[in-house]
């Protein structure tokens, strides 16, 4: 071999859910034949529902990470309505729905009860997840969420962000993106769609609470999502994971495009995927194939008013600027970030 020139060796890898070539312990939770299916078949989510997918991804991962010692509290919203209409529930885990705006607090209560029971030697070490949509998290449930954060209660809160109140017919939330059409931000007037300069990015606010763990994820990066849930479950105290879950109904996209849309959101930088510990950014999932935001906007009917005969070039540029800001702020193009 000495006479042979050096060969470069490239690490192989995969972005798929499973990989028959990996050792079982290295495979994703979703690849497992024995996965929990915490959110089971028969639920009434729309075709191609990103939230149904995200919830199963996250909760299965949490179940896996906690050896099935998990209780979930759920906010009112699509996820609740489609999963638990009497007389059937799709949940296979202990689960409670109380109200729209109190999920983080309900979870705090559950965690407190578990702690006491354990102290008394009457209970196991059970972990608590709270989950809700963006409305239940960034708007009406924000007070309870912030309270749970600042007390560092032993709860993982998962927000499934689809950018609006889809359950009630696609109204604007504080997570609705700029320029998006909703039933309450119609594409009319001088600034059509959701106004620029409004809204909030709760992961950043969560970071400001300096809680042990904050992460964002999308349904397009399963392994990343599962890793984050697993990591979160290995920590104690308040944790927050914000998962982008495209909504075919609210976004006006094809039911088969749900994952693609999430991927585009991440690849354009409009949705930064990162993790932070105790208020400090730790890593970001690097953009693999940089794309202009237009690629993300164009397939969505909620942005249809930006295209057509007279494209809203300036508006698209403003959205691009938002993505560029994310890319800078979270280092989405840096190699080290991955």
């Amino acid at each position, binding site marked *: 071999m000495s006479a042979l020139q050096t060969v470069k060796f490239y690490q192989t890898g995969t972005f798929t859910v499973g990989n028959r070539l990996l050792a079982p312990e290295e495979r994703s939770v979703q690849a497992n034949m024995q996965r929990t299916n915490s959110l089971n078949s028969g639920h009434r989510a729309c075709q191609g529902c990103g939230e149904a997918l995200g919830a199963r991804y996250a909760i299965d991962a949490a179940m896996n990470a906690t050896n*099935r*010692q*998990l*209780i979930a*509290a*759920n906010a009112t919203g699509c996820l*609740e*309505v489609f*999963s*638990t*209409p*009497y*007389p059937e*529930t799709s*949940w*296979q*885990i*202990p*689960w*409670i*729905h*109380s*109200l729209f*705006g*109190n*999920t983080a*607090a*309900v*979870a*705090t*209560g*559950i*965690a*407190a*009860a*578990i*702690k*006491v*029971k354990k*102290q*008394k030697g009457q*209970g*196991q070490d*059970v972990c608590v997840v709270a989950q809700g949509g963006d409305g239940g998290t960034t708007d009406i449930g924000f*007070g*309870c969420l*912030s*309270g749970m954060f*600042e*007390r560092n*209660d032993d709860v993982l809160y998962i927000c499934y962000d689809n950018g609006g109140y889809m359950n009630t017919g696609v109204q604007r939330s504080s997570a609705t993106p700029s320029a998006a059409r909703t039933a309450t931000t119609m594409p009319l007037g001088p600034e059509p769609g959701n106004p620029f300069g409004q809204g909030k990015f709760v992961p950043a606010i969560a970071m400001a609470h300096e809680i042990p763990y904050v992460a964002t994820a999308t349904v397009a990066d399963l392994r990343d999502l599962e890793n984050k849930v697993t990591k979160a479950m290995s920590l104690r105290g308040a944790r927050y994971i914000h998962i982008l879950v495209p909504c075919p109904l609210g976004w006006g996209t094809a039911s088969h495009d749900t994952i693609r849309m999430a991927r585009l959101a991440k690849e354009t930088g409009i949705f930064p995927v990162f993790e932070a510990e105790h208020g400090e950014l730790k890593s970001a999932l690097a953009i693999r194939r940089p794309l202009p935001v237009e690629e993300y906007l164009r397939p969505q009917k909620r942005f249809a008013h930006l295209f057509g005969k007279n494209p809203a070039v300036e508006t698209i540029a403003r959205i691009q600027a938002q993505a560029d800001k994310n890319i800078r702020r979270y280092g989405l193009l840096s190699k080290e970030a991955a």
Partner: protein
Amino acid sequence: MLKQCEGSHAVAEAVALCRPEVICAYPISPQTHIVEGIGEMVKSGELKDCEFINVESEFAAMSVAIGSSAAGARTYTATASQGLLYMVEAVYNASGLGLPIVMTVANRAIGAPINIWNDHSDSLSQRDCGWVQLFAETNQEALDLHIQAFKLAEEISLPVMVCMDGFILTHAYERVDMPTQEQVDAFLPPYEPRQVLDVNEPVSIGAMVGPEAFMEVRYLAHAKQMQALERIPQLAAEFKSVFGRESGGLIRSYRTEDAETIVIAMGSVLGTIKDTVDEMREAGHKIGVLGITSFRPFPLVEVAAALKHCKRFVVLEKSLAVGIGGIVATNVRMAVTGMGLKGYTVVAGLGGRAITMKSLTGLFEKAGRDELDPVNFLDLDWKVVNKQLEREREKRRTGPAAEAMLRDVGAVAARNY
């Protein structure tokens, strides 16, 4: 053990004796001393195996309580007034889910105008929320009712509100007989939830229920309260056998044997009324008192029975159903439907207005002469009110009524004294 202490402290100690596991606290006058007291006990280690959580709002307090109760922990919180209103959505939810939370309401008026003093507007605004509501007459009863409340709540799987007059009871130092831990343990068994979030037996709690079953669910909530109606007197009897004193129950009569006039009221004002009645009895008036302890469930049958032999009743209540008159009175009237009794509603003590023996004596004497209006306002400053009404008649818009009237009264701050 007898001791002289503040009402809030007595309740705090009683709650601690009930071995609560989760307590959530958000400060609002006049409830603060209760949770402060328990918090101190938790922090010092005196109360073990209890999580004390300082939440960010009453809404969160009740929500945390929902979570912990659903997870099988004996759960307690306390609130008042605006706090109760702020948590209303969760209040309904707790009862809807059948979670046996016990909550003290240190009764206080509801704004606007903001007012921190006592009346019953807060609890009574929640009369239909599905909770059991028990009203304490004294600090001793407040203490005792908490012990009974946990047992009642957990047996029927419904939340219970123990209502005690803000400041008048919560901040009053008086003698109470504090039971021992052994006594409380003998009376109150450990919490065994009917339904619980358990990883070994997972269920989904809080399903969405449509028209096909919602009526039934609501009826069952009503049926639970009917069960409570049976259980409350039994619990009072059981309580007596362990603790040796009368406390709780549905209603309590005082000198009603031959009474022509029976005054009906709830809470601490019963004491003042009893003193007034004693004096009037000495002066020859045939007058008695009926105290209602259980406002929800409302003891229709018992109230009717208690009023069977009187000629008239006067409901003196610290609440106002704006636009109709009394809240308690409306309930009482339902109980005496068809009995042909004269009934008077007296709205008194709103926002902490003192209810004095002097005023009561005059009122009851008038009642005895059947000179009362159907709805009366005790010690209302008619001069101020009429002047304002006159102003309003002249000009449709006159600015905030409260400010204008305070100008008329000549004070910027309401004074008891």
